[in-house]
């Protein structure tokens, strides 16, 4: 009984997604659907995948390398009190640091998008229904900027307040660790 219900649910979902794929052909998109809302994007939480891995290709999001979005994201980061939990410069406090190369829940834009929208179990609030998708993407852009994942020329200029880190604009890129490198590959700092 239970099994039957699940399998019919799967069937419906499959049919729906085929139908959705069909509509897509005719659709004229003026704005990209955010990847986190897009069924075709895999938001993966784990590097460990049974069988052949689907190598994660970084999601392009609408505001990557966009100076305006990064600046708006920075404003939101302070106004939404992200700074209170993660540090003004992302050094962490109540929540983990965001300016380093360590990511608990993934550095991909779609991962960060889900982190912000869904929240995370050990004290990261869920902002679902509190922010628009655009605002979340702006925050994603700024969060990634904290560890230097954008081009340097899109960075914010120095802030007006007492500096939390030295030389905000010239922070080095902190490349996130990945387990998708082939065995034997060597990285040097």
């Amino acid at each position, binding site marked *: 009984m239970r099994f039957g219900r699940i399998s019919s649910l799967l069937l419906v979902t499959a049919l729906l997604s085929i139908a959705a794929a069909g509509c897509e052909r005719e659709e004229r998109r003026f704005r990209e659907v955010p990847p986190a809302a897009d069924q075709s994007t895999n938001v993966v939480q784990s590097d460990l995948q049974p069988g052949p891995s689907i190598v994660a290709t970084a999601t392009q999001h609408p505001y990557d390398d966009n100076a305006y979005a990064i600046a708006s994201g920075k404003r939101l980061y302070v106004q939404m009190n992200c700074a209170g939990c993660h540090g003004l*410069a992302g050094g962490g406090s109540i929540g983990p640091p965001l300016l380093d190369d360590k990511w608990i829940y993934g550095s991909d834009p779609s991962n960060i998008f889900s982190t912000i929208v869904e929240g995370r179990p050990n004290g990261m609030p869920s902002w679902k229904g509190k922010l628009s998708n655009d605002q979340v993407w702006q925050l994603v852009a700024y969060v990634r900027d904290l560890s230097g994942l954008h081009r340097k020329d899109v960075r914010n200029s120095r802030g007006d307040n007492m500096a*939390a880190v030295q030389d905000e604009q010239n922070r080095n890129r902190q490349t996130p660790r990945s387990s998708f490198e082939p065995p034997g590959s060597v990285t040097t700092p």
Partner: protein
Amino acid sequence: MARGVALVAALATLGCLKESSDDRPTREAVSAASASASGLPVIAPAATSADDGQWTMPQKDYANSRYSSLAEITPENAKNLKLAFTFSTGILRGHEAGPLVVNNTMYVVTPFPNYLYALDLTKEGAPMKWRYDPKPAASAQGVACCDVVNRGAVYYDGKIIYNTLDAHTVAVDAKDGHEVWNTKVGDINLGESVTMAPLVAKGKVFVGNSGGEFGVRGWIVALDAGSGKIAWRAYNTGPDSEVKIGPQFKPFYDQDKGKDLGVKTWPGDAWRTGGANVWGWLAYDPELDLLYHGTGNPGPWNPEQRPGDNKWSSGIFARRPDDGSAVWYYQWSYHDTFDYDGINEQVLLDMQFGGRPRKVLVRAERNGYVYVLDRQTGEVLSATPFGFVNSSKGVDLKTGRLIYATDKQPKLGEVTRNICPSSPGMKDWQPTAYSPRTGYLYIPHQNLCMDHEAVEANYIAGTPYVGMIAKFTSGPGGNRGVFQAWDIVNRKEVWSIPEKFPVWSGTLVTAGDVAFYGTMDGWFKVVNAKTGDVVWKFKTGSGIIGQPITYKGPDGHQYVAIMDGVGGWSGAIVAGGIDPRDSTAALGFVNAMKDLPAATTKGGMLYVFSL
């Protein structure tokens, strides 16, 4: 020596007196007599505990003396101390609690997830009897401003009672570890958490909330110790009816008189998000029937968003335990502009002051002064700086007002530099101890200054509401910590031990004239209580921010226990894995602690020593 023993014996007998009002004159006479016999302040007789072989509440007694009459360990033999047993809590966050010892069982409460362990002291190696897991909500970790600490449990009537980070109070059967009751006292979605150790008096459990950095409105709640049912709740901001200010309220100073000051000393509705939490230490005087509790900092830290005195924040209330009625109040730091949170412990003593016996409370306060207050009226008898203070110029003894230094006030969008002491104050939560044998208050504290800039704070329930960018630095001399002996009668330092890092551990002093404390780089130290000589030390695995205790083991010998496990606000850089590149992280504490990760690592271990 002999005189000291006699005094202690007298104290022990006094502690056994029954708590009823008809013996009041006798006890007053006796306490005044013993105060003058030694010339030194005595621990308020009605508030001392009789049985010194055990440790049933973190404060040791209602007076918060943290003084034990056990005298086997002395400055002479302390060098023979050896490890008796150890126990790992399995948790790696800041361990601020000390264990309890009751009926040959040791109880250890951990930081989040707030496990409670019972260890059997009658067996070799003190094996675990049971573990209780209250299963607190994991999300509560998001609303703990300064690491997910817990400051201890209390034993009462066959139960171990303590608070969990997600704002529950639980009572656990001391014999078998089963839950007797579990009461939700607060709401994490408002930013509330509970980290303090409850106090039990007259069959009621007193608990207060944390959340001064989340715009949480502070309260103290009384639960029935038998059933866990809430008997009353008093807020520390808002209208008099909710603060429980009524006909009994007789504050000493004029600025605390008037209707609804908990509303009128705030702009608009700001009192609703105004802090004044109760996350520190409670004391109780059975004779005066007064419960004492400090109130935390006003929220947000940015003072420009809350012009006014901001009552009843950063002060102290004396309340009736039966119904919470306020009896008096005093404000340590009116319109607190520095997070000089008023939650430290008050030590209840009887002493001569100005030529006559006074019932006082002595408090090493965050704003940098050791206060002596009349604990019947709330009158300030003296306020003396116990370290370098430039944020204020003293306390006006006529009005009771702190005299702020105008050039150190924070301003919106402007950096004010070198404010001393910094936000954690001269001394934070880490409790002092008082020895009636030396007349000294043993003060573990920090020596830090800071740069400050106010910025706009935005209230979103359940998220930080601070509005201040800060960077702490070491104070004059460069040592960030001090362990100090303070002569209460003569109001001056007797000796002090400089420490590299803030001394964030509690302390303990005994009739053997030894005092104990721990350092953040992991040294457990035994000090000659008279001279300040370090007579023995032991290197623990992680830094120490816990509270040392002592007890008489089943073999009749004296033991001393401490937990390591660095963390807390000062150690958040290690416990929370904060990146030292962000100087303003942990509300500015990281700037002063950048070398801590090289000095210690996380831990969570109990160490018990004996001769």
